[in-house]
């Protein structure tokens, strides 16, 4: 145990917090602002991850690719493709309300996951794609992580400023009006459908960017990375616990949940080695318990939405 090791561990955690924080921000645009129950986060994460991987990785026989574009092009491509695919998906799915929308988006994400796993010619199938370049990857361990963290932090900051501006703009006010009382907003002549679609596309683009940041950090991607449990549900927990409707809450939620997730293992490691395996199962219990405790004591989220207008008259599940 030394400071250097701790610093490396902290850098790693912050990189992943940044990546998940981007997704939580994206979800905040969709749910916190737009009231859209998107349960297909993993799908857009996957689109971004694979788009950037294909654009930047070297060629491999039997698979589309070998473009070896700069990493920046991969990231832009990831956002663009996620947005491009979110548009038709949103067109179809956003007509559905609440839970119907949730299951439809889960369905889309599952279909994407199965396609990624099965279509070898595009995604490398079950073996995934490796050999993806990592910016500053040639630096030593600590410096390389620090440099990557700077990139991730820049992306998160940019996204935060962008989303925050949107939120305070007339567009954001309109979104909240639609979320809180759709009938009234529509009666006032707001284009409810297109505003919703815009929120859906913007949020999905951020999720795609998170996917791209994730693959370049690991220099590889396999279909296990886009499991709904480890992406979709985790991001939902982050947003809800952090404070739905509050961008800083979304980022803070990502940090808190990742810390709970990662540090719980250090806690269960204190148990006797004879029950080392059981201790790992107990870790899941601890994570679930921590979730219950936060919900009990901070049900409105750690940083609740700042109420700029009068309260919501409905809640949406």
């Amino acid at each position, binding site marked *: 145990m030394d400071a250097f090791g701790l610093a490396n561990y902290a850098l790693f955690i912050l990189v992943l917090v940044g990546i998940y924080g981007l997704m939580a921000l994206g979800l905040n645009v969709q749910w916190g602002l737009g009231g859209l129950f998107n349960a297909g986060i993993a799908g857009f994460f996957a689109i971004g991850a694979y788009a950037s991987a294909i654009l930047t990785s070297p060629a491999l026989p039997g698979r589309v690719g070998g473009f070896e574009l700069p990493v920046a092009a991969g990231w832009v491509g990831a956002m663009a493709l996620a947005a491009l695919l979110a548009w038709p998906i949103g067109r179809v799915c956003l007509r559905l309300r609440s839970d119907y929308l949730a299951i439809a988006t889960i369905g889309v994400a599952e279909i994407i996951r199965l396609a990624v796993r099965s279509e070898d010619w595009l995604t490398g199938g079950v073996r995934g794609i490796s050999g993806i370049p990592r910016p500053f990857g040639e630096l030593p361990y600590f410096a390389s992580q620090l440099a990557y963290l700077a990139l991730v932090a820049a992306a998160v900051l940019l996204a935060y400023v962008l989303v925050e501006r949107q939120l305070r703009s007339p567009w954001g006010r309109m979104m909240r009006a639609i979320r809180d009382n759709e009938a009234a907003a529509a009666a006032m002549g707001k284009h409810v459908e297109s505003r919703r679609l815009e929120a859906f596309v913007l949020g999905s683009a951020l999720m795609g960017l998170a996917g791209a940041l994730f693959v370049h950090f690991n220099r590889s991607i396999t279909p296990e990375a886009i499991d709904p449990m480890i992406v979709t549900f985790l991001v939902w927990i982050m947003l809800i616990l952090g404070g739905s409707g509050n961008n800083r809450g979304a980022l803070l939620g990502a940090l808190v949940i990742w810390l709970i997730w990662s540090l719980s293992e250090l806690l269960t490691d204190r148990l006797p080695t004879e029950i080392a395996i059981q201790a790992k199962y107990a870790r899941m219990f601890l994570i679930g318990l921590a979730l*219950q405790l936060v919900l009990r004591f901070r049900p409105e989220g750690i940083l609740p939405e700042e109420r700029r207008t009068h309260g919501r008259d409905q809640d949406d599940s």
Partner: protein
Amino acid sequence: MDAYEFINFHLVPGLLLGSIYAIGAIGVTLVFGILRFAHLAHGDLITLGAFLALGAVTLGGLDPWLALPVAMALAAAVAVGIDASCYAYLRERPRILTVMASLGVALMVRSVVQMGWGTDPTTYTTGILRPDEYFGFILLRDRELATFAAVIVLVAALEAFLRLTRWGRAMRAMSDNPDLARLCGVDNRQVVRLTWIIVGMLCAAAGFLLGINTEVWAMMGWWVLLPVFAAAILGGVGRIDGAVLGGLVIGLAEELSVLVLPAQYKSATAFVILLLVLLFRPRGILKGKVL
């Protein structure tokens, strides 16, 4: 392919799987209808139910089918306890919080199952069971007939309860219009408790039926969660008949999909059908409610 193959290796397995999905989907739709949230711990409660039955078989030495009522009773108690400790205090909050709480419960239940029973797949009885032939061309095993019978009995009993008893009518009233039901003097707390008793029992039944037809292991419930949810939504939220119909459609779709699609896309069929149906009927086949 001939009719023999179609009936025995696609239709019957599809119906069998579908009727098990249906039992799971009824539980999901009851929680949706009465408590108005997506219960993500449903899959892991199904797992727990299967393991409670296993416990009754291995510890109590019971015949598997006699272990079923024991498991149902235990799971009902567990479900009521989970509601009281993890969901009750969120009742007046936005429902998304209860959804998140149920995700936490799912992790906790799975953890308990893994600590208690480990991760190896096991079975209620060792060995394999070859089918008998009926009418000269339908192959069925005793356990499959018993599964169909159990599903029919459970659905019929539930329908009778909801239609004929006072408490059943109170539950339906709560599902249709909670404010009105409360005004008419329906005891909200009792209805919620009753709902969880029924949901717990249905979870145990679904888990047991899944386990006796395949294997019992820690991930079994989590892996049927999405098809079960698809079934509940497909039929229309809050509708028992919709859940049964949805379950059968999803089960059949999965087994029949292999005829036209590569097998690795089997899980996708449930969702393709779901999306197509929702495109034309945004509230499910039987017009469920919008929450």
